[in-house]
């Protein structure tokens, strides 16, 4: 090769990065979303709420303007993967992906109302696999873009809040009303708010005592390492009991207690209802609380503890001023695990009459109505995601020092 021919080649290499693939995640998400739309049903049309529906694709079900906009937005998000990375680009990708989420919801609502208009009154339009995959891919694209933009907890919270507000506005405007899920919601609207509140109360009533019991247990275990073996053996054993079994096992002793002490029964404690549910949730929450607290407190640099004692701190001062603040990121991580776990387990608690979002799940299971199951499951998932997100942000703030 002559020296002269090397120059254009070098220039070509220097120019090349502008058209290179910079982000491998987005094309995978695009492929998943596109494949789901082309192969699977976006919504499903069933003659009534109890039978499975016939899948209908996005382009057949929704108005061409909306489905066209979804295709254009998807391609636009894909294009960001080939542009040179930068904060502005990633923010733009997050915005486009958020629009895609909203448009996907709107397409489902619009498809349902146009399909419903020509169908008998009992007909139901449910959400299909194509819808969920597209929604999931768009949501993951938002998360990926925020991560690449280096967004802090504040910015993430702002995006999540804006997105939630937009979705609520779409729902409020009645754009989703024709969907089977929304119709299940409307027939049970009077129960829904109470069930949601009861669910949150169950979780709070379990996590609070779990921390109040777990933290002192962890402290005792750190001060006397010999206790750790037996303590963790018991807590691990509790964790292995299936939740339905533990709810069931608590019915007998609590019924007996309530029968023996009428005062307890008057307080609402009995074999079924919230009392056994909360007890079971506390028992499940103890292991993560204790394990993370022990790891956090035992993980404090021994030189820091030595210095604190050498300065003349009492045990109490050492704990409150040094050990707990330094263990805080791990304590919050434990709290996060426990919250997410309790939100999920509280669904099962509906089985023993504790109420909460689980009532819709079990009612739906009993009636073989999948959209009613979703009415209980979706809010529980969103609650868990919100708790996870909030505590993760708090832990990030606490770990910043």
């Amino acid at each position: 090769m002559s020296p002269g021919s090397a120059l254009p080649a070098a220039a070509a290499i220097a120019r090349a990065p502008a058209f290179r693939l910079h982000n491998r995640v987005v094309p995978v998400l695009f492929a998943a979303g596109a494949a789901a739309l082309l192969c699977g049903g976006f919504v499903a049309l069933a003659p009534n709420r109890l039978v499975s529906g016939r899948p209908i694709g996005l382009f057949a079900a929704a108005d061409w303007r909306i489905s066209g906009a979804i295709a254009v937005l998807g391609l636009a998000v894909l294009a960001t993967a080939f542009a040179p990375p930068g904060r502005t680009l990633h923010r733009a990708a997050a915005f486009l992906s958020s629009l895609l989420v909203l448009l996907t919801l709107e397409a489902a609502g619009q498809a349902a109302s146009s399909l419903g208009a020509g169908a008998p009154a009992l007909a139901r339009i449910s959400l299909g696999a194509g819808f969920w995959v597209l929604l999931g891919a768009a949501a993951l694209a938002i998360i990926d873009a925020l991560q690449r933009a280096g967004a802090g907890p504040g910015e993430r919270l702002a995006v999540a809040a804006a997105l939630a507000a937009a979705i609520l506005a779409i729902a409020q405007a009645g754009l989703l009303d024709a969907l089977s899920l929304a119709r299940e919601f409307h027939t049970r609207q009077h129960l829904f708010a109470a069930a949601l509140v009861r669910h949150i109360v169950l979780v709070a009533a379990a996590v609070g005592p779990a921390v109040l019991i777990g933290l002192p247990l962890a402290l005792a275990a750190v001060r006397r390492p010999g206790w750790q073996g037996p303590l963790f053996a018991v807590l691990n054993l509790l964790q292995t009991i299936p939740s339905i079994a533990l709810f069931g096992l608590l019915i007998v002793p609590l019924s007996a207690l309530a029968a023996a002490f009428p005062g307890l029964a008057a307080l609402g404690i009995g074999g079924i209802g919230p009392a056994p549910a909360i007890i079971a949730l506390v028992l499940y929450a103890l292991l993560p609380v204790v394990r993370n607290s022990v790891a956090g407190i035992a993980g404090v640099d021994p030189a820091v503890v030595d210095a604190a004692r050498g300065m003349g701190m009492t045990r109490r001062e050492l704990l409150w001023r040094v050990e707990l603040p330094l263990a805080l990121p791990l304590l919050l991580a434990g709290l996060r695990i426990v919250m997410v776990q309790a939100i999920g387990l509280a669904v099962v608690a509906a089985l023993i009459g504790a109420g909460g979002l689980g009532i819709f799940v079990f009612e739906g299971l009993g009636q073989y109505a999948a959209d009613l199951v979703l009415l209980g499951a979706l809010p529980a998932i969103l609650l868990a995601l919100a708790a996870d997100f909030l505590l993760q942000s708090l832990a990030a703030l606490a770990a910043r020092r």
Partner: protein
Amino acid sequence: MIEIDRVSKAYDTRVVVDDLSLSVPEGAFCVLLGPSGCGKSTILRMINRLAPFDAGVIRVGGEDVREVPPEILRRRIGYAIQATGLFPHWRVEDNIATVPRLLGWPRRRVRDRVEELLQLLRLDPETYRRKYPHQLSGGEQQRVGVARALAADPDLLLMDEPFGALDPVTRLALQGEVLRIQQQTKKTVIFVTHDIEEALRLASVIAIVERGRLAQWGTPLDILENPASAFVAEFVGGEGIGLHLLALRKVADRLRPDETADGEPLPSETSLRDALAAMTRRRTDRLPVVDAAGRPLGAITLGDLVR
């Protein structure tokens, strides 16, 4: 005055401190010197009761340390350690304010004291008070560690290999600071190290510890000139003792008054070791000597160094 009176400590059958007695006069800079694992740190930690002992008595200022609640005792004694043990979640000013706040000093007094200490350790208060420990270099962290130990103006300062993890240049600078502060404030310092050079640079008295026992006790010069045992002689440098001795003596001690020599003069406060270094570097066996003001005092020869 700190009296350690026939103190012993054993873990099961392993004796860590064996019937050790030591008394450190007020205002002394006492270095506990010995190899790793000889028990010198344990002895230091017994004084503020971080380490328990089985037998004997330790008195600080005439008071038996076991008669005082440990927290109260420790707040009266400064404590600095090799790993600094700075609180990573507190700013420099909060770290230094630890003991004053435990003692319940008013806010204003704590603030003034922190400022004073930052200046004493040559850390600019405006630059450093708001920083977190992880934003400081190793040497700066240890300066803050020393400032924190001095915060409540204790009469006694315990230092456990505080400069062991620092690079030689930073270590030398901090040794100079501690020596300056000790001479200014006349505090009693008990300082643990395994580094003989550090001990000779700082100590007014050295206690050499060998397997939990006191192997020798005396001024640096005593110990170099008359090592009490083969262990001590070996530990303080073997043949290298000669160089340590040169480091402890001054040109003024070996001066030939009224004689003269050519070349750049040495100040009379120069150590004999530095005089030897200067002669070697300049390829001469004779140098003039001046006083601190630069007035000629005489001369010194290579032979005078080893006389």
